């Protein structure tokens, strides 16, 4: 009940997550070993693949960018007491908004198109979160269920547009035509080149910086603004919120729309940064992983950025692992992700209690 903080910050923020990760990798290692491969070699391949060379690092951060957006999305809703499982669908709609913006003014002015695309991504993502939010606030419809349903609806909607109105001329797959030339977020390696040094950072692009800005913005909003204060009050205790003159309906809706907007911006990285066209299934479950990222990051922007980098490393390292070890199929990488989420996201107490015992032991020693 009485929740006194028992651990120093560093132990809570660094020691415990690290222990959880080790546990996750231990289990994954066992599976690799079971599959008849060398776990240590696999691990070194992954680490090297994720951080060992310039482009690897580039990809790691590239993937991380997606997770920063979806992770932040989940945590904003969470601080308002809402569980947004709809990041996937909101990202899809964000991608749609982005694409429409691009085709709307792409030929007129690339710069304007990019700016409009950023707005469009956030706006459509937010709009897609509006209905579940409104139903939750006004009709008490379980937001977890409605957002899941909206994921399905979104993918069907996108599929319709991509084999219909937005179909790539002569295309075989559900994908749009290429964006007009010049309508894209600059790759950082080109930026570096301009600044006069070369760093092969692959598809890593400006949206990574946008993501970091969003993280800072979310932090500031939650803990430095009155709006954030009211949002957290609503999330913790709705009666107290009403007592304090905060309209719960209004906050619920706004928080969900911010959340959806953040999820929607994922498209900036995938589409405007790299693919330069709208793909039917570009979200690839990043929205779901965002939930794990948010919880592993303890719903704090800093934690979320770190967790996102971890998952980015998993994706990139995993790919390299698959390149090098033919026996390791991509499914195996998915398994590792699942285990990491389980250990680091859901089992935060696994080591907390023992560690706390150790700390108490020492503090008593000092007291005595």
């Amino acid at each position, binding site marked *: 009940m009485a929740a006194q903080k028992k651990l120093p910050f560093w132990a809570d923020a660094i020691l415990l997550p690290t222990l959880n990760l080790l546990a996750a990798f231990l289990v994954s290692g066992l599976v690799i070993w079971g599959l008849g491969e060398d776990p240590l070699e696999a691990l070194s391949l992954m680490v090297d693949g994720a951080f060992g060379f310039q482009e690897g690092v580039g990809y790691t951060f590239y993937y991380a960018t997606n997770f920063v957006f979806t992770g932040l999305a989940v945590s904003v809703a969470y601080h308002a007491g809402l569980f947004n499982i709809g990041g996937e669908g909101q990202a899809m709609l964000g991608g749609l908004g982005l694409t429409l913006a691009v085709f709307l003014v792409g030929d007129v002015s690339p710069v304007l198109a990019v700016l409009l695309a950023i707005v469009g991504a956030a706006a459509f993502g937010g709009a897609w979160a509006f209905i579940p939010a409104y139903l939750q606030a006004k009709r008490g419809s379980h937001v977890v269920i409605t957002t899941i349903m909206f994921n399905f609806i979104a*993918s069907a909607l996108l599929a319709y547009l991509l084999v219909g109105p937005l179909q790539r001329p*002569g295309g075989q797959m559900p994908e749009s035509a290429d964006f007009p030339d010049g309508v894209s977020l600059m790759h950082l390696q080109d930026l570096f080149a301009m600044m006069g040094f070369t760093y092969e950072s692959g598809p890593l692009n400006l949206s990574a910086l946008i993501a970091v800005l969003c993280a800072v913005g979310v932090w500031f909003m939650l803990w430095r603004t009155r709006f954030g204060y009211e949002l957290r009050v609503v999330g913790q205790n709705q009666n107290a919120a009403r007592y304090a003159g905060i309209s719960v309906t209004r906050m619920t809706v706004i928080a969900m729309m911010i959340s959806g907007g953040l999820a929607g911006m994922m498209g900036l990285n995938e589409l405007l940064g790299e*693919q330069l066209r709208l793909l039917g299934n570009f979200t*690839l479950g990043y929205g779901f992983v965002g939930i794990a990222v948010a919880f592993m990051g303890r719903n704090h922007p800093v934690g979320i950025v770190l967790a996102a980098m971890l998952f980015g490393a998993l994706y990139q390292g995993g790919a390299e692992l698959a390149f090098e070890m033919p026996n390791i199929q*991509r499914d195996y990488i998915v398994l590792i992700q699942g285990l990491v989420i389980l250990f680091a996201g859901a089992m935060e107490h696994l080591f907390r209690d023992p560690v706390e015992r150790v700390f108490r032991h020492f503090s008593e020693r000092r007291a005595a």
Partner: protein
Amino acid sequence: ADFTPVLLYDIGGKFDKSFNEAAHTGGERFKEETGLDYKDFEPNSETQYEQALKRFARRKADLIIAVGVGYSVAVRNVASKYPDVKFTVIDAIIDLPNVQSITFKENEGSFLVGMIAAMKTESNTIGFLGGMDIPLIRRFERGYRQGAEYVKGDLTFIENYVGTTPSAWNDPIKAAEMARSQYARGADIIFSAAGPSGLGSIQAAKDTGNLAIGVDSNQNHVAPGYVLTSMLKRVDLAVYHAMKAAEAGEWKPGHTVLGLAEGGVDFALDEYNADLITAEMKAKLDEARAKIVSGEIVVSDVEGSNSGH
């Protein structure tokens, strides 16, 4: 170092019971016959298409084969950056000096199995079951219909698509339900172009005592007596030949279309369905085949298909 080609599948993955798997078969055949090994990779996302291509291009792979139209953009980008690396892309067309493009006339193959269905049906109702609703699959349907109508004018068609997202390729349960419903509504033969989901419709054929038509690779053996035939898309040949040619130094860029004439598409006839396809059916089919090859019959196509863009 000795010759090692690289084979890149698309998101569908190596064992999609469809053209990725066929590609895999081709690679395996090359491996057996030449004793030379090849590398392959299954990407998780479109992003990894380009990532994989770059990776192997940088390492000067002897030949990079990219399977699936999804690769068009990625191959175009990478191939132009690495002009001295050979690329073969299947199901897409890239016009670059170091790229060989191979596409298939699925509609011609479908035309033949359509004829078989029409000749075989007793209820004069035949079904089509597509996986994900995309143009590629619609051209299977188009050819199938045309072939059937070429034989009989007064046929009823029932068609379904399992879904609209990639999960549609992996939902045999739903496919089976749809197939059952088609059979119950009078269809006695269903052609399914649905990847692994297709197994569901074969299952349904077996459970309801009707006939199914397989796709891409030969599926006659899956349920002997219940699979009327399979529409073959010889991606395996394409891959195998590309590898052989490159090894022998005879690899050439440019666009190849593999239709009936080239043996790139066909219907499967083997011990499992021998007694389902009578001699005069066979005769009719050969006649039609000749006409298609000669151009007397033109099998139409959906716009937005990949026989040119």
